[in-house]
C-alpha cells in the first residue's frame, strides 16, 4: 500500500484491525518517510527505528495470536525529547543533557507502551522547553514544513513538525505556556494542552512544575482524542494528578455558548490572524453556537505573572545540573565552585541562562514579595476571572497566537516581543485550564497557517473536542502540507 505514513492514526488502526496491513509495514513506511524528509525539517534529536521495528513485530505477533491489544496497537508516534523513554537519550535539546540516557520511563511512556504504540523517535524542542519558536534548541532546529525558512513554533517544535510533515500521525508534546498550542498553530495542526493534573508529569523534565502539562498533537481531532485518551489519568507517581477519565466528544455545538473575550483581540494581534479567528467563530455560529462577548480584564497582567512564576520554578528545577552526577561537566573541575560555574556557563544556552537569572532575582530576599508573591496573587485573580466567565459560557475562543510563523532569526535580540506573543496561551497554564489550538486557514500576507484556541472548563476536554470536531467537519477537514 502506498504512503502508509500519511494516513491518520484512525485509518491505520482500521487497516490494522482488518489485518490489511501490518504494524511492521506501517512502521517501515514511517521510517522511510522520516529518513527521506527529516534532513529538510529536522524534527528529531534521535531515532528509535531499531526498537520501533522490533516492537511493531511484537505487536503483529500479538495480533496474529489473538492476544489483547492496546488502543494504539501498532501505530507509530513520536515523543518530545523531554519525556523519558528508558534507554534512549533525553536531551531537552541542551548541551547539558546531550548524552543523558533515561534510566526509567515517564508514566506517559509507560502508558504508550501499554497501548502498544510504536515510538519511532524523540523530537526536538526549544532548549529545556524555553522558547516559542524552536530556535533555542542546541541540537536539531526544526523547520516549518509550510516554509522551511520559517520557525515551526515551540517549544514542542519537533513534535509539531513531524506531524505537520506527515512523518507520523501524531506525537506527544508538552505545554508550559503554549508549547503545544503555539507550534500547532504555526504548523497548521491540532494540539491540546489538557487540564493541569490530567496527564502525569512523572518522567518529564520540568520547566515550570505548576504549569507543565503533556498533551497530544495530531492532524485531526479524532487522532488527537485517541492519543489523549491513552495518556490521561491519575498517576500515583505525580501527586498533582486527579482521577480523570476522558468522556469522549460529540460533533454538534448547537446551543453551546462560546465566550469571546475582547482582551484577546487587541492591538498586538495581527489583523490577518484576527480575521481568520473571527471567520472560525462565524463558522461555529452557523453551526448553532451562541456567541457572546466576555471580558477577562486581568489578562494584561498575565504575561508578567507568568514569566515571574515560570522563571522562578525553572531556576529551581534547573539547579540540579551541576556537573557532579550526570550530564555535561564543565571545563574547570579544580574545585566544586568552579565546577558549578563552568558546567552551568558552558552547558546552558542563553535563553536558559536568561530565565535562571530572572527566576533567581524574583525569589531573592527583598524581591520575592514584590515579584513572586504578587504574581501568585495575580494567578488567583486570573483563575477567578475564568471561573466567573465560565458561569455564562461553555467554552472560550481566542487566537492561539497573535502572529504567524516568522523567518528564522527575525526576532533574535528581542526576547520581550517573543515573550509577548505568548499572551493568548499562558493564561490557561496560569489558571490550569485546558485549551486546544485548531487550524483556521492561512495568513493572507504570508500564507502561513493560523490557529484559534478553544478554552474549556477544568477537566472538560470533552467540550473542547466537541467544538473542534464540529468545526473540522464544517470546514471539511484541515489542510495538510504536501511535503
Amino acid at each position, binding site marked *: 500500500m502506498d504512503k502508509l505514513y500519511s494516513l491518520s492514526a484512525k485509518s491505520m488502526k482500521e487497516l490494522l484491525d482488518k489485518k490489511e496491513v501490518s504494524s511492521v509495514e506501517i512502521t517501515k513506511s514511517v521510517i522511510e518517510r522520516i529518513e527521506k524528509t527529516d534532513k529538510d525539517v529536522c524534527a528529531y534529536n534521535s531515532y528509535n527505528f531499531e526498537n520501533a521495528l522490533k516492537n511493531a513485530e511484537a505487536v503483529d505477533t500479538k495480533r496474529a495470536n489473538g492476544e489483547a491489544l492496546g488502543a494504539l496497537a501498532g501505530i507509530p508516534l513520536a515523543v518530545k525529547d523531554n519525556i523519558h523513554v528508558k534507554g534512549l537519550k533525553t536531551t531537552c535539546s541542551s548541551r547539558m543533557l546531550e548524552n543523558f540516557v533515561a534510566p526509567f520511563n515517564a508514566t506517559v511512556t509507560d502508558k504508550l507502551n501499554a497501548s502498544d504504540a510504536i515510538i519511532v523517535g524523540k523530537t526536538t524542542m526549544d532548549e529545556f522547553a524555553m522558547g516559542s519558536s524552536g530556535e533555542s534548541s542546541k541540537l536539531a532546529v526544526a523547520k516549518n514544513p509550510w516554509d522551511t525558512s520559517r520557525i515551526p513554533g515551540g517549544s514542542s517544535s519537533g513534535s509539531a513538525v513531524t506531524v505537520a510533515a506527515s512523518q507520523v500521525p501524531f506525537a506527544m508534546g508538552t505545554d508550559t505556556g503554549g508549547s503545544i498550542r503555539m507550534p500547532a498553530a504555526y504548523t497548521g495542526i491540532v494540539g491540546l494542552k489538557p487540564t493541569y493534573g490530567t496527564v502525569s508529569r512523572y518522567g518529564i523534565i520540568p520547566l515550570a512544575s505548576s504549569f507543565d502539562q503533556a498533551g497530544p498533537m495530531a492532524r485531526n481531532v479524532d487522532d488527537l482524542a485517541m492519543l489523549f485518551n491513552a495518556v490521561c489519568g491519575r498517576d500515583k507517581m505525580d*501527586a*498533582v494528578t486527579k482521577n480523570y477519565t476522558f468522556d469522549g466528544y460529540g460533533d454538534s455545538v448547537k446551543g453551546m455558548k462560546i465566550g469571546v473575550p475582547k482582551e484577546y483581540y487587541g492591538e498586538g494581534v495581527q489583523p490577518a490572524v484576527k480575521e481568520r479567528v473571527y471567520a472560525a467563530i462565524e463558522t461555529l455560529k452557523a453551526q448553532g453556537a451562541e456567541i457572546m462577548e466576555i471580558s477577562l480584564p486581568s489578562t494584561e497582567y498575565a504575561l508578567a505573572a507568568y514569566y515571574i512564576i515560570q522563571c*522562578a520554578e525553572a531556576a529551581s528545577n534547573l539547579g540540579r545540573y551541576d556537573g557532579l552526577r550526570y550530564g555535561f561537566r564543565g571545563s574547570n573541575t579544580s574545585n566544586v565552585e568552579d565546577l558549578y560555574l563552568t558546567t552551568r556557563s558552558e552547558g546552558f544556552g542563553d535563553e536558559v541562562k536568561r530565565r535562571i537569572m530572572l527566576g533567581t532575582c524574583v525569589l531573592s530576599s527583598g524581591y520575592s514579595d514584590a515579584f513572586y508573591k504578587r504574581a501568585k496573587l495575580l494567578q488567583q485573580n486570573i483563575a477567578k476571572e475564568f471561573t466567573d466567565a465560565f458561569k455564562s459560557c461553555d467554552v472560550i475562543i481566542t487566537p492561539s497566537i497573535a502572529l504567524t510563523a516568522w523567518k528564522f532569526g527575525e526576532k533574535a535580540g528581542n526576547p520581550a516581543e517573543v515573550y509577548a506573543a505568548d499572551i493568548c496561551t499562558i493564561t490557561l497554564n496560569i489558571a490550569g485550564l485546558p485549551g486546544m489550538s485548531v487550524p483556521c486557514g492561512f495568513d493572507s500576507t504570508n500564507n502561513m497557517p493560523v490557529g484559534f484556541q478553544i478554552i474549556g472548563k477544568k477537566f472538560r476536554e470533552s467540550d473542547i473536542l466537541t467544538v473542534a470536531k464540529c468545526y473540522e467537519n464544517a470546514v471539511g477537514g484541515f489542510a495538510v502540507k504536501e511535503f
Partner: protein
Amino acid sequence: MNNKYEIVVGLEVHAELSTKTKIFCGCKNEFGAEVNTNVCPVCMGLPGTLPVLNEKVVEYGIRMGHALNCTINRATKHDRKNYFYADLPKAYQTTQDDVPLCANGYLDILVGDETRRIGITRLHIEEDTAKLIHADEFGGTLIDFNRCGVPLIEIVSEPDMRSAEEAKVYLETLRTILLYLGISDAKMQEGSIRADVNVSVRPVGSKEYGVRVETKNVSSFSGVYNAIVYEANRQIEVLENGGELFQETRRWDDAAGKNVLMRSKEDAQDYRYFPEPDLLGYVIPEELVENLKAELPELPVQKTLRYMNECGLSRADAETIALSKDKAVFFDACMATGKCGPKLLSNWVLGEITRVANERRCEISELPLTVENLVDMIALIENKTISNAAAKTVFEIIVDKDEKPADIVKAKGLAQISDSSALQTIVDSVIAANEKAINDYKGGRTNVLGFLVGQCMKQSKGQGNPAMFKEMMIAAIENS
C-alpha cells in the same frame, strides 16, 4: 564563667524519623546499609522525578507536635529551599517555610529541683541530604545518597534556656520523647539527632537579648554542653575586652573543643524559598490529629513526677527510670500487677536487672525475665519469706527461666528462718567461736556487729532472718 553575664540559649534540633521508607519515595530508610544502595531516581533527584509525600512522616511529626504541646497546622504546605551543595542532588531541599506542621508549643524539663518551661517555636518536616564522606586517601569527597530523602523533623526552641546544663537536659528530654513515641532511633552517634546551638550573653538583669551566634555541627550531648560553654565564654571575653559581637555562624569542632567561624551575616545564603509546586497543599483530617493526640503515651517528665509524687521514689531514681523507656515500661508493668511496692522494685530495676541487661548489651524487654516472676519474687522479700541474699539466688534463675519464685524457694530451701530457737543456736555457736570479736564489741568497737551477723548468716546458709540475728546477737552479748 563570669557571673556578671547571663547565657541565653535556643536550640534547633534535627531528628531523623524511623519511618520504614523515605519521605518522598519508596526507598528503605535504614542506617548502616551499604553505601548508595537505598537509592532510586526520586531520592537521587534525577531530572523528571517527582516527590510523593509519605503520610507516616506527617503522622510522626504530629505526634511529636502533640508531645511538645504545639498547635497543629492542618492546612499544611511544603516549600523549596534552594542552594547549591554537593550533598543536595536537586539543589533544593523540600522543607516547610512559613507554615510549619506544628507551632507554638512548650516542653517542661527538670533542671536541678526546678521545672523549667522551654517554648517551642515550631516543628516542621523536611528531607535529609546525602552524606559527604571526605576520603583523604585519594584526596576527594565521596557522596552516599542513602541518607538523601530520609525524613527529618526540625524542632526550634525559643531562646528560653539559661545555661549549658539546661540545654543538655532539654536535648536529653527531647531524645527520650522521640524514643517514647517510637518515631526516631534518636542515636546521636549515628547522626540521627543533630543540634544547632544559638547562644547569646547579656548582663544579668538585662531584658534585651545580646547578639546571637549559631554554632552548627553539634552531635553529642556533651558537645552541646561544651559548645555552649565555649561560645558563651568567647562572647564574654570579647565584651570584657571592649570588643563587638557579630551575628554569625560558627562550626563546632568536637575533637578540638572549640568553634571556628563558618560565615558572617553578610555571607548568609539567600535560600529563595517558594512553595513546592510538585506537592499540592492539603488539609490534614481533624480526626487524625485528634486520634494521634489520644494515643500519646505518658511522657518522661510526667513519669518522673509521678514516680516521685505517687511512688515516693527519690528524684534521681525516678528520673533514671523515666528517662529510659525500657526501664519505665518494665517498671510500670510491674507496678500494674499491684503485687509489690515501688521502692524495692525500683532498687531491683535499677540494680540487678539493669546490671544483667548491660552485661548482655540488651534491653530489659529482651531478657527472658517476666514481670510476673519478678513481682512474685519481690513480694516474697517484702513478706519476709526470703532474704535479699536468697532473692539473688532466685533472681539468677528467673532472669533466664520462666520458673515460679515460690517453687524455687521451696526446691532450694531458701525460705528465711524466723524461728527464734533455731536462730539462737546459731548465735550461741558464733559467740563461742569469736571470743575476740565479742571482746572488741564490749570494748566499744560496735562495728564488729556486722561481722558477727554475717557469720550467723553464713552458718544459716543465708536463710536466717538478718534483722533477728542482729537483735539476738546484741541481746546475747549484753547479757553475757
